[in-house]
Each structure stands twice: as C-alpha cells, then as structure tokens.
C-alpha cells in the first residue's frame, strides 16, 4: 500500500519512527555490525517469505499475467485431493516422532552424562548423524530397509527367525520406518540440549536426595525431570516444528507412497509448486502450515509455562 503525499503519519507511527531514529542515532554501531547478516536474512529469507504470502492470493503465473483470486487458494485447501490425507499423515508422523525422539534422546543423554569410559567418543558418535547430509542418510537407510532377504534389516531380523518385511512398501510399516530414521538422525542435537540441561543441575541437589535415601529412579523423578522441564520444552518445540515440516526422507525414500501413506504436508506443498506449477496454491498451503505450527507452539508454551520450575 502506498501513502498519498497529503497523508501524515499518525501519532503512533511518529512515535515509533522517532524511537527508531533515536535508537539508531545514538547507538548505531551494533546495527552496523549486524547489517550484513540482516541484509542476507532479509534478501534470502524474509523477502521470499513475504513474497510467498502475496503469491498466496494469486493464481500465480511465473512469467505471465497473474490473476488476483483473493482467498480462493485458502478456500480450496480442503477440497483438493490428498489434502486431508497429507494432514493426517503429518500428524501421525508427529505423534510418533516427537515422544519417541524425546524419550530416546533423554535416555541417551542420561547415559552420556554418567561417568563412563570414552564418554567424549560416544558423544561424538551420537552427534555424527546430525552433521551428515540428509539425502545421503536417507539413501543409506533406504538400503538398510531394502525389501527381500538381501536387505540389511531383514537379515538382522532373520537372525531371530522373523520373516523379511517390505519396510518402505508396506503401508503399515512405511511411516514408522521413516520415524526410526529421523530418531537416529535427529537424536544427536536433542541429546546435546539435554546434556546442557543435565550439567546445569547443581550436584548438591543429588547429594541431598541421596542423604534422604533417594534411589536412582527417585533422583530422576524428583530432581532431574522437574529441573529439565525448561530444556524439555525447547526440545519439544523444536521436535514438533521439525516433524510438521518433514520432507527429505519422504522425498528420497518413498515419494509419498505407498498409496500416499507417507505423503506429508511439506512434500505435498513441494509437489503442488514444482510438480504441478500451482505456486499460488502451494504458497497458501505453506502459510496454513505456518499458522498451524505457530498455533501449536503457542499452546505448548502456554501449557509448559505453568509447569516450568
């Protein structure tokens, strides 16, 4: 929207402008130093995001005339084939991935926090998957899940007399198989956060609990777990946001199949934009996903803010 020459900024706008001016006028050095980073983020993150918001109101043609369609792209959301399935698959993935990754990460962090031999090496090993390429890891796990007797995992379960499974081709197994990969891949960063949390707990509290006769479980239940609540909230938020945006393993391993059983919202958006050329509609779905993530994050923060110690 452009402002007409006769229009004067309102009192609020003037106050804000004045505050910004004073801040920059008298304290400009920090802003100069962060300017390069701000410019990069603005050009490659903020501007595209805002542009996508504008696109979501258009039947957007990349090179031709785009037609303004108002809220039509948002209204079409539930009418499109596969949308409900993509939403339910994403929620299913999130429901599987968030608690399992959280508890596995916490368990591993507790082990790595203990006084064990070669602790630093174990910490490095658990963190290695995090810095590995997403695509390379997905390809690796695709081979691990190879169907038939030649698959690595099938060979492993064959030792226990179990029959080979079609891990990525069976509708019931495909999503849990992807979750298993993402637990392994993402665990390292969560373990790191939990470790930081564990090391911030004062050892005196454990000593006091031991003097009171608390065992291992009681110490965890009454000291560790309550004091880890703030850290757990961070891990929970990050996991939820990441789970709702899962893309790479689906793209590489299953292509959304079999029969759309691993079609997630992020992969659906990708298909809409780069498969079908529906950039406007894909932008609208992206903003709906953004709104959903924002809503869930706010709810989580409110719930946990009451119970954080």
């Amino acid at each position, binding site marked *: 929207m452009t402002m007409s020459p006769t229009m004067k900024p309102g009192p609020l706008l003037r106050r804000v402008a004045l505050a910004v001016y004073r801040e920059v006028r008298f304290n400009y050095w920090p802003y100069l130093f962060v300017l390069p980073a701000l410019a990069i983020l603005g050009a490659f993150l903020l501007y595209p995001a805002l542009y996508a918001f504008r696109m979501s109101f258009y039947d957007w*043609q*990349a090179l031709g005339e785009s037609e303004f369609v108002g809220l039509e792209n948002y209204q079409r959301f539930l009418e499109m084939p596969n949308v409900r399935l993509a939403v339910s698959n994403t929620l299913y993935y999130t429901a599987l991935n968030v608690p399992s990754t959280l508890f596995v990460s916490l368990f591993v962090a507790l082990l790595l926090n203990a006084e064990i031999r070669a602790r630093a090496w174990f910490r490095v090993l658990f963190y290695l998957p995090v810095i590995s390429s997403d695509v390379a890891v997905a390809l690796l796990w695709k081979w691990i899940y*190879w*169907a038939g007797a030649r698959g690595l995992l099938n060979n492993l379960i064959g030792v226990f007399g179990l029959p080979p499974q079609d891990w990525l*081709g069976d509708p019931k197994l495909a999503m849990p198989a992807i979750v298993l990969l993402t637990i392994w891949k993402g665990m390292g960063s969560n373990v790191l956060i939990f470790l930081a949390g564990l090391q911030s707990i004062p050892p005196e509290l454990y000593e006091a609990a031991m003097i009171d006769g608390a065992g291992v479980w009681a110490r965890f239940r009454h000291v560790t777990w309550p004091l880890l609540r703030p850290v757990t909230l961070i891990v929970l938020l990050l996991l939820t946001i990441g789970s709702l945006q899962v893309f790479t393993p689906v793209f590489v*391993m299953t292509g959304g199949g079999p029969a*759309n059983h691993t079609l997630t919202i992020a992969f659906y958006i990708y*298909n809409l934009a780069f498969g079908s050329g529906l950039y406007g509609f894909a932008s609208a779905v992206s903003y709906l996903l953004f709104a959903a993530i924002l809503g869930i994050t706010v709810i989580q923060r409110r719930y946990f803010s009451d119970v954080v110690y």
Partner: protein
Amino acid sequence: MCKQTIFRWLALWTILALMAACGPAATPTPATIIQTVEVPVTVAPEVTEPPPPVTIVFQEPWSLTSDRGKVVQQIISDFMTANPDIRVVIKDVAVNSAVFTTEVLAGSASDVVMFSEDGVSLFAPQDAFVDLTPYVATWDASKRNDFYESIWAFGGYEGKQYGIPWIAHSMALIYNKGMFEAAGLDPNKPPTTWDELYEYAMALTSGEQYGYGLVGKQGHDMAWSWYNFVRQNGGDLATETGGQWTVALNSPAALEALEFYLKMKDVAPPETTTTGGGEANTLFIQKRVAMYVMGPWAVASIRKDAPDIEVGVAPLPYSQQLATTVGAGLLTVPRTTQNPDAAWRLIDYLTEVENQVKLVSTGFAFRIPTRQSAVQDAWFQQNPEYIPFVEGLGYGHVPTVLAIAMKYNQVHNEVVQPALSKAFIGELTPADALAEMETNGNPLLR
C-alpha cells in the same frame, strides 16, 4: 581521536572491505568496455576494423569438465570458427522451471536454453520464448522434414514453433542375452507381445533371479511405465470433447493394461514396491533381473558398470499396437535475448546431423539424434543396440495431453500416481483405481 573511535572506524572499514571482496569483480568484461568507453576517432576513414563479435550465452545441463561437456565445448568451438562474428559463452547449469523462471524474471536468461520435452508446453503459454517459426521457414524442406514428427511436436504451441529438438529418447525393452541363453531362450528373438513378455519373464525367474524389473514405487517412473501399456492396448490418457478435456484412463483398454502390469509382479523381485526407474537399472546391472524397460542411457550405463553383460535391446512388447514414451531436449530462445538471430544460427548449427551424432555418440551415449537421416551414420552400424530407440521415435507419439500439460501434470502427480500405487499394493482393485483417477482427475482438468 580517541582509541575507541579509531577502532570503530577500522572495524567498519574491515567489514566494508570484506563485503567488497565478496561482491562481483569490479573489472569490466571486454564487452562492457566496448559498449561504454568512447574512443576518439583518429584513424583514417578507409581503415575499418571488423565489428566486435556478438556474444551469446548457451545454457546446457552438462558440466564442462564431464566427457559430454567437453564434446559440447568442441562443437561450440567449431561453431565459433565457422562464425567469427559470434562468440558463445557456455553456461553449464541444468534448467528446470524454478531456475528458468528466476532467470527470466531477473533478465539474466541465456540466449539459447536447452529444455526437457515439457519446457515449451509449460512456458510458451506464458510468452517466455521467441517464436522460431519464421526462422524454421528459412530452412530447406529436406531439413525440416528430416525431424521425427513425434519429437518435433514437443517444440510447438498453438501453431508456432518455440523449441527445436536437439536430442531425443524413446523407451525399449533391455534384456540380458546371457540370461536368455541360460534359460533356453533365443537371445535374438526377444518377446514381442505381452503374452510372450510374461512367458519369457516366467522362464527367466529362478531363485534370486527375476524375469522383469517392474517399477512399483509411487511416482513419475511408475506412471510412465504403465502409460506405455495403456497406449500399447489402444488407450489414452485424456480426451477432448467440445473443448472440454476429461480423463480417459477409466477405459477397458487401460483396465487390461493395469491388470497386466500387476500380473508382472509374479516375475519381479520382492522390493518392487520401492523400485523406481533408477533402482530397476541397478537390479539389471546386479543381474537380479533379466529384462526391464528404459531409455538409451541405460545401454551406456550397463556398458560402463557391467561390461560383462551382453545387452539386447528390442521394441516394447505390445498387445494392440507398438507404442512407447518419447522425449526430447529442446533448444529454445528466451524472450529476454538481445540477439535472436545469432541464437538461431547456433541452433541451426547444433541441429546439423553430424553435430547431433557427435554429441550423443561420444563417451557415454545417452540419447539419440532427432533427425531421421542420422541413423545412416556409421556409429549406428557399429552400435546396433541404439537402433530400436531410433525406431521408437517413428512409432512413438507425443502425449495428447501436451496441449493441457500444466493441468494434466496435476492429475498425473496428485491423482494417477497414488491411485496406481493403491492398485499396486492391493488397497484398491484395478477397476476402482481407474474410477478414482477419473473421479478425482476430471475436476482438475476443468
């Protein structure tokens, strides 16, 4: 000046210097010098220097350090020798919709761009290209008519020609002659019908070896694999009646094709549900399957990775008619070009038969020429495995849905692929899967 202020200024200058170092080089290119510097005329009027060459950019997908990139460089070098008034800069960046759109919007699109077969149908409606029809009209009829019609059509939109096919592919049955002999089959008589395909595949299935590399992973590869069977049975993807397009896949021909496709699971490996085109190629190289369907690049890939396999290539087996998927690499001129004439001269040169053969036959032979006379080249006599692919351009046809490529892409991605996968894993009967394609696909075509 206090120390703190000196430090601040030094820090600021350091940041600015770093930013300048990371930015584009300040040295102007020779072309920029020619355009911007005014040189006083001091020479005698009778001494005239030749005009500077026009510079055009040619965007092609192969790295200049690859074997194919080196061949492209050689061809371009020959072109510049023959046309000293044109200088060609090669940009080895693969073009896709996102890259091309960005470049056109930024005004930095190349002068000649190689697109895949759907490039013109996707971007010509958005007025992205220079109309090449007047240039084509300058050709002798012998050159224009030498292009396979099936491939030529990919470059057309609403009666105008926006893309000239440079390289092409069709699909063929690729088989392991050694496995044929071991199974008691004549390696010089590959299957020609669906029934024979199944019988042969059954004979070739034993233990850990399977007869056919069936594609069953949800996605584009599975869809085009099945489309071949649909067309071989006389079916089509969509039809137009009174200006309205409808999905034509809920037909008896398509149903038979789907039932046969699913029957081939009997002779395919257990990992078929996660097998795409690339995996099928790997299975063949691993000698786990004896036959599969792929394009000419597969022959080069097998020769490179499994030279001990004696490869046989045959037209796709059929039921009613020969049919195969075809595709092309199209040379286009984006509307942003300043030098359409020079761009056309490059396209004209690249599409000469000898240059097409040179490109596809050197090193990793991955595609076939788009001109019929190319098959007379000695290279094809020395490499007869590629001839069935060339023949495929003769009976292959451009999809009818090319006219509605944008809309059909959505049907293809969102409706056909999942419905096909549902039939493949038994979640829907073949008839129900086809009905779903029609029910969910038609609204998207309106």
